[in-house]
């Protein structure tokens, strides 16, 4: 899989546009240009940048450099993003800690904190970008603390709710809901409602 410099540039532009779009949710209508530019120095963007660079190096066959960038990313941001993963433009990782990604995804992927997308029975070094890992479609959102494990296929526009565990294929436009709902209760009045 070749990944030319033009591809890197195109994906990074998409990422920056995506970050600007997501970042706009966090401020009111009037903020300074400097504030808007600050998204470029935030951990989500730097993590994405390091991943893109490592994937670019991997595409050139410079595996050593790719792993070095991947490990730097892991050390600095706590996100283990496999350099062979093909992820479309608009990647957004709002909280980078604990994220593991080893697979392929389409455009506008959102990975929340502690999301794991991997084939748990592979060793990261034993995967070269082949199909033995999850493949996600476009506009997929992976919630916090989610585990997506195995060589499965997830369709477009799928949302995976927090704390879900997914081991099988999912069609387009679906929602995956975790099985562990917390009970919110007042110890004096007994069980009140499900969270």
């Amino acid at each position, binding site marked *: 899989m070749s990944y030319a410099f033009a591809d890197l540039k195109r994906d990074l532009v998409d990422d920056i546009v995506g970050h600007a779009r997501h970042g706009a949710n966090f401020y009111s209508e009037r903020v300074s240009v400097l504030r808007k530019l600050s998204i470029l120095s935030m951990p989500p963007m730097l993590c994405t940048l390091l991943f893109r660079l490592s994937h670019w190096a991997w595409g050139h066959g410079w595996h050593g450099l790719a792993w070095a960038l991947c490990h730097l990313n892991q*050390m600095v941001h706590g996100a*283990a993003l496999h350099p062979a993963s093909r992820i479309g433009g608009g990647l957004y990782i709002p909280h980078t800690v604990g994220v593991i990604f080893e697979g392929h995804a389409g455009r506008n992927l959102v990975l929340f904190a502690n999301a*794991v997308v991997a084939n*748990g029975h592979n060793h990261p070094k*034993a995967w070269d970008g082949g199909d033995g890992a999850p493949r996600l479609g476009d506009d997929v959102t992976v919630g916090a603390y989610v585990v997506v494990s195995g060589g499965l296929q997830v369709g477009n526009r799928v949302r995976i709710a927090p704390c879900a*565990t997914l081991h099988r294929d999912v069609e387009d436009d679906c929602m995956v809901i975790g099985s562990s709902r917390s009970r919110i209760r007042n110890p004096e009045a007994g069980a009140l409602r499900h969270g």
Partner: protein
Amino acid sequence: MNASVRAAISAAETRVRLAADRKRLRAFIADRPQLARGILWLQPSYQAVYLHRWSHFFFQRGNRLLARVLWHLNLLLTGADISPLADIEGGFVLVYPVCTIVLGKAGRNLTVIGHSGFGGGMSSLNIGAGPGLPVIGDDVWLDLGAFILGPVHVGDGVVIKARSLVTSDVPAGYVVDSSASRVRKAEEGAAE
């Protein structure tokens, strides 16, 4: 309080365990159908295990400062929080070290995939499945997000599937699974 006073681990024993770790890690990679390239020393999987082995060695020899430095370095470099107290036999493979927490005693050929671990909050030690920490047998497999918490015995060859929590004893050869998530069509709203 410690239930039994054990002889401190020797450097030779640490090297033997590390050799077993390397052998198993290489076999682990070679078992997979794809490539196995890259330098072992540059892999966080091996770095985490290596730093833990020496951290454990220095801890048992009474050099707690060095043990702590290596432990912290491990946390910094690889994101794995493997306590110097943890006593793990040879053949330990840690696949994704990020967010892994390990404290307790484990047998040979332990596999921890990632985001998982074992230990116990507020433990008052007594390793031997007494007041705080788990004791784990040989060939145990901890999948993504699986946790063993509290003073429990886990037998040989137990497989703990993704996102399962174990807080009671598991006999040898058992498989622990958690309930799967539901998939729902967004527009219909009907659960499958």
